[in-house]
């Protein structure tokens, strides 16, 4: 954690970058593009980018912070916020964000400078199950135990996994394009790793 890395008298840039990325993911939860059938929010785009730009640990920390901010009642999750959101069937997807950011960070970490779009797409595809997996499990558990409704396995796979895939792919591609352009600016990489 940032406290350990601090040099005497200098604020670690992580102490500032982590919350700013949490705020970016939050912005992604508020800005929405009306897209039938489900509104399209940008959170996961920032999840992949947090991993790629901040690295595994700081990326994961930023997403944990995002969850904390939402649970404190700021309406930054897809449909609001507050501690009651834990009971929403879709809360599981949010739980996967820190893990997905961490894995994306690990897989792109070896690159010294520019991150090619293809590399991020591949890393993102590997990390995507970490969002969708817990999401679908939570959906199943939530509907089975909290609301006491039975839901079949096939229905969980359809409504919890397949419906999300096209939008997730689009977001990953956009994240990859933006990350490639951003990391092409050398000044930018220096700033994140200071």
């Amino acid at each position, binding site marked *: 954690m940032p406290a350990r890395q601090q040099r005497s008298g200098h604020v670690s840039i992580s102490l500032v970058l982590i919350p700013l990325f949490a705020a970016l993911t939050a912005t992604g939860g*508020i800005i929405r593009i009306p897209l039938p059938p489900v509104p399209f929010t940008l959170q996961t785009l920032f999840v992949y980018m947090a991993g790629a730009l901040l690295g595994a640990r700081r990326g994961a920390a930023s997403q944990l912070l995002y969850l904390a901010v939402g649970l*404190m009642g700021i309406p930054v999750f897809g449909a609001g916020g507050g501690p009651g959101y834990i009971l929403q069937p879709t809360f599981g997807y949010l739980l996967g964000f820190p893990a997905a950011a961490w894995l994306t960070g690990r897989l792109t970490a070896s690159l010294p400078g520019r991150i090619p779009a293809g590399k991020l797409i591949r890393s993102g595809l590997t990390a995507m199950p970490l969002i969708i997996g817990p999401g679908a499990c939570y959906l199943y558990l939530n509907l089975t135990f909290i609301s006491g409704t039975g839901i079949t396995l096939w229905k969980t796979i359809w409504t919890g996994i397949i419906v999300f895939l096209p939008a997730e792919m689009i977001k990953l591609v956009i994240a990859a394009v933006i990350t490639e352009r951003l990391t092409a600016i050398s000044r930018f990489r220096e700033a994140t790793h200071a």
Partner: protein
Amino acid sequence: MKQVNITLGQFLPGNSYIHNLDPRTKIFCSLSLMTLVLFVHTPQLLLFYLCVSVLLFFLARISPALAFRNLRPFLFLFVFTIVLHAVFTAGDPLWRCPALHLAVTGEGLLRGVFYTLRISVLVVMASLLTLTTQPMALTDAVEHLLKPFRKIGVPAHEIAMMLSISLRFIPTLLEEAERIKKAQISRGAEISGSLRQKLRSLVPLLIPLFLSTFRRANELALAMDARCYRGGTGRTNYIRLSFSLNDFIAFAMTLAAAVPVLSGVRS
């Protein structure tokens, strides 16, 4: 885009018994109450906790209409719960739908309503915490509650600091996004149009947003350095948290509210 009061979240200013409790007390008591409700399996007990939450709203001087507003995002879940229970619970059919081989049963409807009410009580209790506590007060409370864990390497102060930085910057980044969008439109960027165009327009919106975010991060780190910020050691707070008699009354009331569930578990 709704931007009003985003930093305050759900907080409603007020001067009630609940508003004036220590935020640590509120976190502890609401978490305990929510855990208790999860163990409720009989309608009588549920009714008891429903009364408790109504009483709490009365103590906080918040109109119950606001509690309903917090339930709105759950509407889909409620309908889903009631319908599935009504259809799939065995019992005396009230109404049959021969085409689908389904029958709505009275038992099923009651069960659906029971589960719906239980989720509602949970959500309402959870929302009371954020309705009566400012996010910044919650941040302070989190720092205090995490302090004992510093020995095992939990950076309590840094977590609280980062929470306040993100709370501070969410509205700023939203404004920034809006400003960049307008700037790009004025330069002739296509924001509306076909789906493909809408998605393409995200690139000229997000790249400047990221660049300005990193610029802000550097400026903020520099500003903190210039003010000799050096973490949590020896730092004092403007607002000091302290427990009062009211907090102990709240603990006692929570304990009293736990009695029915705890005695039920034993028997």
